[in-house]
Structure formats: structure tokens, C-alpha cells
């Protein structure tokens, strides 16, 4: 098991290295830079002055030098400062990571709480109205884009209930109630999409498992339906669901960009998009590497979960 984990971690290194090269290269290929964007609203900065600023920030150095400096900063866990705001990136991340983490966790929890029971219901009542409703909800979740759903939710909440989540983020520790009010709707919007894929996967794998011989045996033994479904069938049906949920993390992070913008939450998504738009190289590079590392870790955790779900799986 340990050997397996170490081997997987070693495999992650070239993945991260490649990611770093891609993101570094892409940022340099894009036209314009942070200084141009910063001066954007005014437009009366001379080329000489811009050149001086670029030199001060090390943007005039050869690319390989810039890359090596950045890699060293990442390795030494000191990603430097934002070109655009001058704020240390570590500080910006410290503020934005908890927001996205809270949003993603709540979305994941809401998504699973909705998806798994409905998926089970849909599978056990195949081709009944409740199955159709479940499937329509699932297809809707897959088809409706986050930006549309989010906008609709906030607009109609304002019109019908004269209420929207309070704007102006506060941390959970400052005001738990206000914080939850701010996160519930965006998490529901984000979780709805996640629940759709999970619901469909739960339904189809459970249907498959319910047709297995050992389940038939369980029915034949006269076991209660709840025990057969939840204890014998569902656990085995969950392996592909776990894979889907693990993979959905990337979708969740992508969706967070839109949802954070609509619900005015200062998370990683907004930080990254703004940094891309304003060519804030160090921020984009650090954030992308952080996401890459998170996904690599999550994939590893998903693989390790298989062994817990199915004791026949062994890692050598």
C-alpha cells in the first residue's frame, strides 16, 4: 500500500512539471501584460516608464530565467507577490481558498445528499413517475449551465421573496448564520450540476448491481428490501460513483468561477479569472499549480477509496 502511494506520488512529479511548463508557456504566449492592464484605465504611460516597471518586476529577463525563479519560489513555498495588486500571493490564497473550499464542500454535500437517494429511488422504481422525474431532474442538471441557473435563482429570489443572500462575504467564524446564508444558494446551484451526473451514475450502476446473482440470492433469502438495496447492492454500486465524484472536483472548481462571480464570493475562481484577464503571471501560475496538485491528490484518494469499498481490491 505504502509503496503504491509513493509510486503514485512519484508519477505525480512529471505531471506537475508538465503542468508548470504549459501554464508558464501559455501565459507568455498571450499578448499584453499586467502592467498594460494596470495602466489600462488611463492610457498615458510612456513606453519608457513601462519598460522601467517591467525591469523592476523582472519581466524583461529571458523566459528560462523567469521559469526557474518561479519554480524555485514554488518549491520554497514562497510564490511571490501579485504584479497587479502587489499583495503577497500567499495572503491572497489564504483569503480565497477557504471560500472555495467551503463552497465546494457544501456543494458536494448537497449534491450527494440529493443525488444518491434519488439515484437509488430511480433505480428501485425503474420506469415509474418518480424515476422519470428523477431522470428529468438529472438531465436538467446536466443541461442547465451554472451561469444561467445562478442568474435565474438570484433574480427570482429577489422578485418573489424580496430576499437574496447577503452580499459582502463574512467568514463562518465572524458570523455563522450570515455565512451560511451567503453559501447555501450558490452551493445548491453548484451542487445541482454535480448531483445530476452522480444521480445518473448511481441509478445505472445500481440497476446493474440489482441484477447480479448475489442480490437475487439476498431477495430469495427473504431479506428486507432496504437491507438488500442499501447494504448489499449500493456499496458495490458506489465504486464508479466515487470515480465520478472525484472527477467532478475539476468541474466543481470550474463552476465555482461562475458561481463565485454571480454570488459575489471572493474565492479562488474569481482570483484566477481576474489574474488571467490581467495577465498576473505569478498568481495564475500558482493557482493553476495548486489546482493541478489538488486534482492529482484527489485522484490518488479516489483510488485508495476503492479498496475500502471493495475489499477484493489490493494495491501492490
Amino acid at each position: 500500500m505504502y509503496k503504491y502511494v509513493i509510486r503514485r506520488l512519484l508519477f505525480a512529479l512529471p505531471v506537475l512539471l508538465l503542468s508548470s511548463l504549459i501554464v508558464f508557456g501559455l501565459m507568455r504566449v498571450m499578448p499584453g501584460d499586467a502592467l498594460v492592464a494596470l495602466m489600462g484605465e488611463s492610457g498615458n504611460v510612456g513606453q519608457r516608464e513601462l519598460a522601467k516597471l517591467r525591469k523592476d518586476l523582472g519581466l524583461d529577463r529571458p523566459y528560462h530565467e523567469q521559469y526557474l525563479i518561479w519554480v524555485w519560489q514554488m518549491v520554497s513555498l514562497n510564490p511571490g507577490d501579485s504584479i497587479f495588486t502587489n499583495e503577497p500571493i500567499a495572503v491572497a490564497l489564504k483569503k480565497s481558498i477557504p471560500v472555495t473550499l467551503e463552497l465546494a464542500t457544501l456543494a458536494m454535500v448537497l449534491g450527494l445528499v440529493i443525488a444518491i437517494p434519488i439515484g437509488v429511488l430511480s433505480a428501485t422504481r425503474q420506469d415509474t413517475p418518480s424515476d422519470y422525474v428523477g431522470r428529468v431532474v438529472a438531465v436538467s442538471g446536466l443541461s442547465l449551465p451554472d451561469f444561467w441557473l445562478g442568474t435565474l435563482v438570484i433574480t427570482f429570489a429577489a422578485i418573489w421573496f424580496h430576499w437574496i443572500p447577503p452580499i459582502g462575504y463574512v467568514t463562518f467564524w465572524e458570523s455563522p448564520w450570515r455565512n451560511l446564508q451567503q453559501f447555501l444558494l450558490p452551493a445548491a446551484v453548484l451542487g445541482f450540476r454535480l448531483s445530476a451526473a452522480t444521480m445518473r451514475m448511481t441509478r445505472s450502476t445500481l440497476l446493474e448491481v440489482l441484477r447480479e446473482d448475489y442480490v437475487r440470492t439476498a431477495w430469495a433469502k427473504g431479506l428486507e428490501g432496504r437491507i438488500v438495496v442499501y447494504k448489499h447492492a449500493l456499496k458495490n454500486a458506489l465504486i464508479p460513483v466515487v470515480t465520478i465524484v472525484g472527477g467532478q472536483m475539476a468541474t466543481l472548481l470550474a463552476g465555482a468561477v461562475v458561481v463565485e462571480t454571480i454570488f459575489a464570493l471572493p474565492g479562488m475562481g474569481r482570483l484566477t479569472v481576474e489574474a488571467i484577464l490581467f495577465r498576473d503571471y505569478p498568481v495564475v501560475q500558482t493557482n493553476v499549480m495548486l489546482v493541478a496538485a489538488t486534482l492529482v491528490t484527489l485522484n490518488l484518494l479516489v483510488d485508495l477509496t476503492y479498496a475500502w469499498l471493495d475489499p477484493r481490491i489490493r494495491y501492490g
Partner: protein
Amino acid sequence: MPADTPRRIAVRKRKHVNRRDFLRRVGWGGVGATALVVGAGRAGAATPPASTYPDWIPASPKPPKRGGVLTRASAWDPPVIDPRLTQSVGLFQFAGLTSNRLVRHPFSDEAAGPSDLTLKGDLAESWTASPDHRVWTFKLRQGVKWQRVPPLNGRDLVAADVKYCFEAYAREGVQAFTFQEIEGMETPDKYTLRVHLHTSNVLFPQNLAEPVAVIFAREVLEEDGDLKKRMPGTGPYILKEHTRKVRVVLQRNPDYFDKGRPYVDEYVILSTPDAATRLAAFRTGQSDIIWLASPSEVETVRKTNPAIVVQSYHNTLAPFGLALAQDRPPFNDVRVRRAVSMAIDRQRQVDTVYEGHGIAGWGVPYIYYQDKAPTVKDLGPWWQYRPEEAKRLLAEAGHPRGFETTLFYYEYFPQMTSQVQLVQQELKKNLNIDVKITKLDYTTYYGRYVEGKWDGMSWGFQSGHAVGLDERTYHYMHSKSTKNFFRVNDPVIDELTTKLRQTPDRAEQRALTRKIVDREFDQVLRMWMPYDNGFLVFQPHMRNVAAGALRRTDGYGSPTLARSWIDK
């Protein structure tokens, strides 16, 4: 397995819905939902004439009340708070409240109307010019104190502070062009600042009234090396909190020199990038002020919030237009520029894209040369929609079969894309000009546009913050100016804009400005495009928040809020 148990089969038979039933039910559901959405849309589409709302809301006759919190959901978030480094509206939506300028335009409770441009003293009590308008002497208001926060701790403002600030602006940053006009400064006493200019400029005080010319604290620059973290000033509000992408909180300055003001205790600006969320925040009372672009949007809000107060705004200028590479073929030929201009139906853009509540487009604020906003007809022969004449002129210029060109732009607001596409269609239909459009992200667009080396066309802009006559003429049109983004290179314009700076008489200034504008229109030097007027919408308890002609209360016109109060 459960799906096959006898009980389940029986239940399924009872509840069975075949696919046809299911599709029928979903179909009716869909029709219902569509009707709901269409109904909602129709409600919004009933557009009243824009004139139903006043363009000026006079100051309240009631005695102002102290207290309360003013909140606004804002699209803008300041990238940095250093006024030397940015002229972003994100910063100046509040910098005019934390800091002062030497001179300013009137507040809404002082102004006779939206076009009142009389300069008032802000930190300066009075100002005079030498006969040749090269030396300007400003007498500062005495007893003005910096805010009681470190490192200033409430010390007196003196002339040396202003001198230091102007020198810093001239040395580096985005305001360098304006302040490099200063040859030198002296402070004969603690409260007198004498400014020597390189050349005469009767409009110099106007440049100091621009919202970006705020006086910052020398101690902060000396201690921090920049102004990115702290912003103590002399203004009515103290910057209490600035959390990027969350909020800006301003707290009443009890030591503000204008005794008794400001009236509102706290002003909170909530960073809200999404337009639908800003609207929802206004509807639910989380925001007290909102800007809406179209009459139909106002009507939609009135349905849920009938008590709102609406000011119909009327822009005095358009910041966007077609910028042509007029230093090279084919646009260096005035006949081509005129033909292109005549092939574009501006009124159609106003009527369709802006629902009739827009301006035809011009670059110099009309209030400097005439009393009423121009219509398309007032803009001269080359700005009328005359496709046949345009075709003839283009043929005369040697392009009877049209030509191919490019147009790049950044979508500052959704209507802009509609305008770009309308222009593309009309140039193809009327002149057989094939325009290849490239939509860029902001940084790419901005970098390419200001570099000024592009070919073809761009949907160009001139900075939105400035409204002063000098800025809008000399700074933006003189061939030697670094702000001349439209690449105007016309000796007549150079001569007229320079002469304007040496003309103290207001009537003569108006006449000269008229000549500059006529020349610009005749030569089609900047091909302005229609722009929205929009509406400022307030919660019913807001008082004295109306915007003047020059700037909206929610953006660069933020100093107006020093006189606003909440009637609750």
C-alpha cells in the same frame, strides 16, 4: 431483484406512465414555463418614453438628517488604491470621498442644474492667474486637517503637501502628462501655492478639478514607498476597510473641514461583479443606488419597487467610437473616412441598441460649445446616413468595389457587440467593405490599442474620467499628446487646441471649441458612435444624490455623496 417483485410489478402497472404520456406532460409543462418566461419578458419590454423621468433632481428642501449607512453594490473593484498608478473608476468611486482636490465642480445641492460647471474651491479658497495665465496662485483653506489616522494624526494641511503631491504626479505614473505641464512651484507662505506653467493655460484649474487629481499624504508615500495600502486624506470619509473583491468601508470623518458634513455615517461599497446580482441587491434593499442602461430595465424594477426615484441621465459625450488608422491607406484619405461615416446609420443604433435613450456620439462635451445636446442632424453632412453618397465618394477615392479591413474591440458592455455587428453589416451592404472583426480580452485589446501601431479599425475609446475642456481637446486631440489614441494629426486642430488654452474669455472659448468640433466632424478625425444615456436609480429614502451633467454619482462623481443624506 426489486424491480421484478410481484408487488412492484403491480405498483408499476398502476402508476405506469408510457413515453407518450410522459412526453405530453412534459410538453404541457414546457408550454406553461415558456408562457411564464415570455410573460415576464413582455412586462419588461413595455418601454415608456425616456422623457417620463426627470433629468435633474433638485436638492431636498428639508433639513438634512445625520446618520445611517449608505450601501451600493458596485461592479468595480480597485486594482490598487494608488492614484499615481491608476485612474480606474474602481478607485475613484471612493477616492473623491477620502481625499480632496484643489478645486471641484459644484455638488448637486449647489448646482443650478445638471450643466452647471462653475468651479468651486475644494482645498483652495481662491485662485488667481497672472495676466499671461502661466502663473497660478492658489490660496489654501486654513484649518484643513488630515484625517486622525497614522501617520498624519490630524495635522494641518499646508501648501507644501500639495506641492509634494503634484511633483510626485509629474514624476511618474498615469497623471504625468497633466502635471509635467508644471515648470515649477513655490510656497511663499504656509497656505499659498504658486504654480508656474511651461506655457499659458487658462484651463489649468479645470485639470485640477478632474476627479483623479486628489491630494494624497506625503508621509504615506515616504514611509511605504507607494500608496497601495493606505489612503488617509482630508476628505469627508476615512477609509476604514478595503478588502479586495469584498467591500470598501468608509467612515465619517468627524474632523472634516466642511463642518456638519458629511451626513451619512458610513458608506459601504460591495464588490458585486454580476449585473443581475447588483439588480437583485437593489431590489431587496441591499443597495441604495444603481445604474441602469435602458428604459425597459427601469420599468422592470419599478414593477417590484414602485417607490424608486429615477434620474434620466444625459451624457455630454460619448467615450467610444471607430478609431481608424488614419495615418496610412485607405483611411488617410478624408473621402474614405467620410464615406465610411455616411454608410453608418447612427440613429438606428440609438433606436434599437439603446431603446431610444442614447446619444448619437461626439467627443467634446457639448456644454462647452452649445446649450442643447446635438442630434444626428447637428453633426454635419458626413455624419448623416446617406449610403448612395457614401458609395459615390468611396468610388471617387479609388475604391469602387470596396476593400477588406479589420476591426478589433473589447466588449466593455453587451450593447457594444451589437453596435460592432451593425457597423459591419452596413459597411458591407452599403460600401462592400469586408470587415473582419476580432473580439479581444481587455488586456490584449488595451495593449494593442494604446500602442497605436495597428492597421484598419478599432472600436476605440478616450478615457472616461475626464470632462474638462482642456483634457477633451488638447490632451486628446493634439498630435503631440500621449493621450491622442485616435491618432489625430491635423495642424488645424493642433493650432486651435493650443489657442484655446490661451483664450480666457468664455464666449471666445465657446466659439473656438465650436471650431474644433466642426473641424473634427468635417475631417471625420474621430468617428464617434452612439452611447447610452442610462438612468440613475435611487431608493426612495435617498436625498441629494442626483448626478450633474459631467459625472454619475456612483463613479467618478462620488464626491457628490458628501452632501447626500438618508431620510429615514
